[in-house]
């Protein structure tokens, strides 16, 4: 099958093709890129004038609820949500039930993901059952396809286990992804400060995150291992990562759209869709995060897509679980809050969505180049739309961004010889 993408603006940070092009894709592979390919007979032509095409976006922090809570999300529904949000690849976190701490669970996820447009790469647990006691069979997990390790939901429990995990994972050049939070200070429902004081909600101090970031940086320095800081959310943590990078340490970091968009002020509504961990922080933290995104301290943007059933979120605030879904809103939020406000360029955004996450996970970065398999995201940075949770592909609807006006949206994604466009998947 031949399809032609006409008049589309190319952004490929790792390539040298720029400007408005026509791209011919034959049987899922890029066969021509020219200023104009007018007279070629094709099966379908898409006029993408005013739209942008980039290497397919990758979200390295997604919670699929399979196995365990398939009522909230499955590998397939999560992948569908990713495609709808403009993503051609996702890495899924191991806090499933059972946890991803054996080859069998990875095999199950791989089976479920087979044949989908979206690549799904499982992240293995650092410890058995994510309990922080015994190392998971990391070599076996790598062999089965794990791209990283994490006990996400909590930090690796002790410095001793972390040390071993960093030494062991180095053999396979896989990062340990850390949810940085000191256990003894954890357990609150929101960020500590004047707002938590006024709302009477049990607080968790920002220093809980900073302490663990500091511990991990020191441990990376000592072991030579590699740590990726998940969902960075505090001013001090951003500065710690900045200094660690200056020293040349193997530290990378991601931020979620909610942590660069929202603050703790939102909690005043007692709406559980603003309850997440790490919690929403203060305005000065948001400012520091945006600085970190600008200067490259924060390598990538990831959703921390965390589906929860309506009955789990629709309850007393302190009893409700943490987390929100984000796959279908994060591109719009990045464009609205970062690009259109002039904080980062479109090219920087593409680096943070398509290039850096794959580099961190040692995955090949797709290129927009003749002869390459087409792995593309096509988006319209200027489309104004209103978020409507009822239209989400995700099985869960726990988003605080319902009815929010955003500027910028995914138009189509192409990967694995398939295309998703106008709400439909089809073979190309």
């Amino acid at each position, binding site marked *: 099958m031949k399809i032609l993408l006409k008049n589309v603006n190319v952004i490929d940070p790792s390539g040298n093709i720029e400007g408005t092009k026509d791209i011919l894709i034959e049987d899922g592979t890029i066969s021509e890129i020219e200023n104009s390919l007018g007279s070629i007979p094709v099966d379908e032509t898409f006029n993408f004038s005013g739209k942008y095409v980039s290497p397919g976006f990758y979200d390295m922090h997604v919670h699929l609820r399979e196995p365990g809570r398939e009522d909230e999300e499955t590998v397939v529904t999560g992948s569908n949500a990713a495609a709808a949000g403009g993503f051609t690849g996702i890495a899924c976190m191991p806090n499933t039930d059972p946890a991803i701490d054996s080859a069998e669970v990875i095999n199950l996820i791989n089976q479920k993901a087979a044949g989908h447009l979206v690549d799904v790469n499982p992240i293995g647990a650092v410890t058995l059952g994510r309990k922080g006691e015994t190392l998971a069979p990391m070599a076996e997990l790598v062999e089965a396809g794990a791209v990283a390790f994490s006990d996400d939901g909590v930090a690796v429990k002790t410095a001793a286990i972390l040390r071993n995990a960093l030494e062991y994972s180095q053999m396979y050049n896989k990062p340990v992804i850390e949810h940085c939070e000191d256990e003894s200070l954890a357990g609150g429902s929101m960020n500590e*400060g004047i707002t938590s004081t006024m709302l*009477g*909600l049990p607080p968790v101090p920002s220093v809980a995150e900073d302490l663990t970031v500091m511990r991990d940086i020191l441990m990376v320095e000592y072991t030579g291992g590699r740590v990726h800081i998940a969902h960075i959310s505090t001013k001090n943590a951003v500065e710690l990562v900045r200094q660690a990078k200056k020293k040349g340490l193997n530290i990378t970091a991601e931020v979620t759209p909610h942590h660069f968009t929202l603050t703790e002020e939102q909690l005043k509504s*007692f709406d559980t869709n603003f309850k997440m961990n790490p919690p929403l922080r203060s305005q000065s933290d948001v400012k520091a995060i945006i600085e970190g995104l600008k200067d490259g301290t924060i390598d990538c943007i990831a959703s921390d897509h965390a589906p929860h059933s309506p*009955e789990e979120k629709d309850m007393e*605030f*302190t009893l409700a679980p943490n987390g929100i879904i984000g796959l279908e809103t994060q591109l719009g939020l990045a464009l609205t809050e970062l690009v259109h406000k002039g904080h980062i360029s479109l090219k920087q955004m593409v680096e943070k969505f398509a290039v850096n996450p794959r580099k961190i996970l040692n995955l090949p970065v797709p290129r927009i180049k003749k002869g390459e398999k087409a792995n593309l995201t096509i988006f319209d940075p200027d489309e104004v739309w209103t978020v409507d949770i009822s239209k989400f592909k995700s099985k869960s609807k726990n988003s605080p961004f319902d009815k929010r006006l955003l500027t910028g949206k995914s138009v189509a994604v192409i990967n694995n010889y398939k295309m998703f466009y106008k709400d439909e998947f089809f073979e190309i």
Partner: protein
Amino acid sequence: MSLSSKHLLGLYGVPKEDIQTILDTATTFREVLERPIKKVPTLQGKTVVNLFYESSTRTRISFELAQKRLSADTVNFSKAGSSTSKGETFKDTVKNIEAMKIDMIVVRHSSAGVPHYLTKITNANIINAGDGRHEHPTQALLDMYSIREKMGKLEGLKICIVGDIAHSRVALSNIFGLKTMGAEVSVCGPATMIPKGIEKLGVNVLHDIDKAIAGHDVLNVLRIQLERAAGSSIPSLREYHNFFGITAERIENNNKDILILHPGPINRGVELSSDVADGPYQVILDQVTNGVAIRMAVLYLLGTMN
């Protein structure tokens, strides 16, 4: 006289006129409580549910008596712990109760924000009887009523709240209400019991109990939660009493005109010595009586709004 909201969720943002209205209305009901027949037909035909998800003796009895004295029909629902531990969700419980055609819900819950949540899932008038460490508005109203009764005013008074401010819903409601009424508010307690950023609410922070007694017209002394505090936020109850406990000696040395309030239940020998708890400076039992009048006023004002 009517209030600007159909609920009493807290005193944050409640206008001065509303607080004034509640206090003035309570004065009328306070008089009813002195009659041989302490009952008025004001809320006849109204049904009030007392939804208590956390144990309470005095607040619940106070609300129940207030309801009975206004001739409302009352139902009590008590459940310790969380609704989610087994079976039915909190929302389903509330929906079931609402389906039995009720008018008002008085709610106490260990989770802050539950009264606000109730306003989203029911149409009943909601009265907060204490949510987590957030607010306990009727307690603060009865405190203000008791202060006004003794001192003749609230505006310009120097009032200090003493104890575990961080875990107290009484403290926060008092701060919001008293500030609105023009009082000058301080808090005094060990640093571990003072919540982050409290000074941004316009209150002074003290750690010296003698200065607190000397420099204020009123002390509102909070209960130290024995089971929670000792060994974590304070080294021991003994140390607390020695450095923050109110004794007759401290009062006599610093300020014999002080008025002492306590929301109860008292820990004798911890936050108050017995000679203070039973002595001439306190109005602890008046507070309890006033509590019924305040709750009658709130129930009446909200229950007759529509």
